């Protein structure tokens, strides 16, 4: 085992969040070349489809992986092909154990006409239905809805907040951002810039202040000004740091005390490039503050975000949004059916 220093109070958060919308940055249209291994070639002949007809946003990350999987399944996989299917799932971060389970169950299915349908259904069964028109709820008309954004360092919390704020502002809601990341250098400035961009109200304290106090003040301000939605940014924290998790639990308690019965939405922001550790993260955050939803960020990368299957299977917390780019509008509601379909497209 490593014996790491355990900082009592972090001075600085790890580098965070995605870059903002920038004029010079056009997302590339082509998926990254699958340049590493040639082994799939013999297993999946003639599967180099261009993902031109895929849903915008998802297309960039899906093409290589799932079109190959589709190619494998279409022809009706032979015994040996199941191993390759399993590997493809593993390559998408579904996880070794879960991939084996899914394939096992798919093989055992007798009701599906094709193997593709079987795997598709098994994967879909792991996901929780989520209403695409989901909105954070408010307990009473004179109370704001509260969104608490949590996650480990650098997953994209602040950027996601910028997009959420834009979304709710565009719908005509009044939004107040609470800068409860008082740790990371310049985190408050970063959130303030997003706040200005979408015309939100903004509550912050000095760097190093008690984040729970920021949230308390933000809710006070929101109640006084009849704001619809409060979105609280929190410092990224590794789930293994119990002092920082305690701090997060305190924020949750402050919300519950200030707005009794309000049940805040607690959104867990997960980087799509995260591997198997994502489940451990989600589990601890869920135990600490009770997650009500997941945001799968950076899905426009070459990563597949397959760890979501394991998380939903284990915790039954639905994915609410996927982040698919760096522009303000690049936040899409998560639709399990479409997600699975896109995997096979």
């Amino acid at each position, binding site marked *: *085992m490593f*014996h*790491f*220093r*355990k*900082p009592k109070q*972090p*001075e*600085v958060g*790890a*580098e965070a*969040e*995605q*870059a*903002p919308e*920038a004029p*010079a*940055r*056009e*997302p*590339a249209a082509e998926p*990254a070349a699958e*340049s*590493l291994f040639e082994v799939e070639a013999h297993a999946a002949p003639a599967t180099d489809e261009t993902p031109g007809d895929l849903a915008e946003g998802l297309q*960039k990350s899906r093409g290589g992986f799932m079109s190959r999987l589709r190619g494998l399944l279409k022809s009706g996989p032979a015994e040996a092909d199941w191993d390759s299917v399993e590997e493809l799932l*593993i*390559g998408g*971060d579904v*996880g070794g*154990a879960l991939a084996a389970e899914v394939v096992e169950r798919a093989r055992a299915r007798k009701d599906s006409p094709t193997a593709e349908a079987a795997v598709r259904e098994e994967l879909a069964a792991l996901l929780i239905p989520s209403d695409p028109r989901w909105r954070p709820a408010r307990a009473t008309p004179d109370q704001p809805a509260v969104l608490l954004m949590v996650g*480990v*360092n*650098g997953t*994209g919390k602040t950027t996601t907040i910028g997009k959420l704020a834009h979304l709710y502002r565009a719908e005509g809601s009044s939004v107040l951002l609470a800068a409860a990341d008082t*740790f990371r*250098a*310049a985190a408050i*400035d*970063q959130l*303030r*810039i*997003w706040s200005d961009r979408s015309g939100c109200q903004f509550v912050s304290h000095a760097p190093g202040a008690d984040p729970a106090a920021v949230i308390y003040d933000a809710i006070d301000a929101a109640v006084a000004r009849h704001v619809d939605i409060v979105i609280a940014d929190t410092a990224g924290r*590794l*789930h*293994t740091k119990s002092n920082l998790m305690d701090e997060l639990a305190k924020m949750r308690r402050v919300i519950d005390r200030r707005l009794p019965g309000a049940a805040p939405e607690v959104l867990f922001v997960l*980087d799509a*490039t*995260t*591997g*198997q*550790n994502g489940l*451990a*993260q989600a589990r601890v955050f869920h135990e600490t503050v009770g997650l009500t939803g997941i945001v799968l960020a*950076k899905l426009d*990368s*070459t*990563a*597949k975000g397959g*760890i979501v299957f394991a998380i939903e299977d284990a915790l039954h917390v639905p994915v609410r949004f996927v982040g698919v780019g*760096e522009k303000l509008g690049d936040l899409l509601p998560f639709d399990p059916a479409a997600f699975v379909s896109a995997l096979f497209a």
Partner: protein
Amino acid sequence: MFDALSERLRKTLGALTGRGRVSEADVDAAMREVRLALLEADVNFKVVKDFVGRVRERATGAEILDSLTAGQQVVKIVNEELVALLSAGDRTFHLTGSPAVIVLVGLQGSGKTTSAAKLARFMVKQGRRPIMVAADPYRPAAADQLQTLGKSLDVPVFRAQTGTTVLAIAKAGMDAARKQVRDTVIIDTAGRLTVDEGLMKEIADLTAALKPAETLLVIDAMTGQEAVHVAEAFAAAVPVTGLVLTKIDGDARGGAALSISAVTGLPVKFLGTGEKTDALEPFYPDRLAGRILGMGDVLTLIERAQETYDEKQAARMTEKLRKNSFTLEDMLEQMEQVQKMGPMGQLIEMIPGLGGMAKQAQAAVDRGDLRRLQAIIRSMTPEERRDPNVLNGSRRRRIANGSGTRLQDVNQVVKQFSELQKMMKQMSGGRFPRRIPGMPGQG
């Protein structure tokens, strides 16, 4: 959640210990465990395949099949192979050029800005005069973040107006470095996706112009299967010289680093081990190997046991237990042996599967339980140690006074020891285990 691989192998192969031979089917079972554990650690599945193939080849060798401790041998082979892969490349940190240029690249949120500050602090410690350049004109307040960090370290930060191109920022940063007589320039770039050709070209132009001594790819230890593709794409665009593996203070096993080293041959040069600017450590392949295996630091534990334990003594102790002639004196000797190996909590932490008990054990030690026990035994006469039956009330009071404990503490020790003796009597009545669990040096 996740059983340490060494634990799984012990279960798979443990039953075979002493049977003399391990069949190929046994090796297959062990390899399935190895495969699953590596996948769980986010090692790329293709790397896993090659790796398992290599381990299997070595494990099925005659030398292993004849071994009495097959499980341990397989763990050892796996460990050696992991260390070999992780030892890839040149881990030296080069600081050539005047000023020496270090460029940090990576995906969004991998930890570049924090790593830049850590490197700056590291450079200052080495007696160098670094300057940091904020070459991220995209993320809001990225330059502010670097500036705040620089201020806390008393390291200058060069930044430019929004709208300046990255290449222009970097060149101006170099000028600033020369003017301020700085010998090391650390350039923090924006996070970027490998599919973003424009941005990948941007850093390609940057490194082509500056010819950095080190171009470090900053990789989050929690990264999944994509890590290899990410590293390949960056290495194709810029001359990457090594990795900084960040957020290793979490519980991710960091298999991403193994995959990258295995496929690209790039070495890990630094580990980011915390949020503070001093949390940067040089990389040791054997430690990460142990972490990926989830095997605790068994090797260190075995080493320490071998250093402190002498085998004859262990054999003598086993014999005593068998003959039921184990005395309080022997118990004292045993405790002293174990304590020589290090702090109790740390020892237990090294044992796979017992990590969670470390705190409790250390707490017992901290409360002084062990010291009290030792003090009580030491306050006894040799006769009393050999035969606690002679301990009448007066003797017990004397022992309590002598050891600075209470009478009930002494009573408790005597009672516990007599229970231990009873237990040993039962065991010596035929089914005495050939190996005594928890006694090092015999396995």
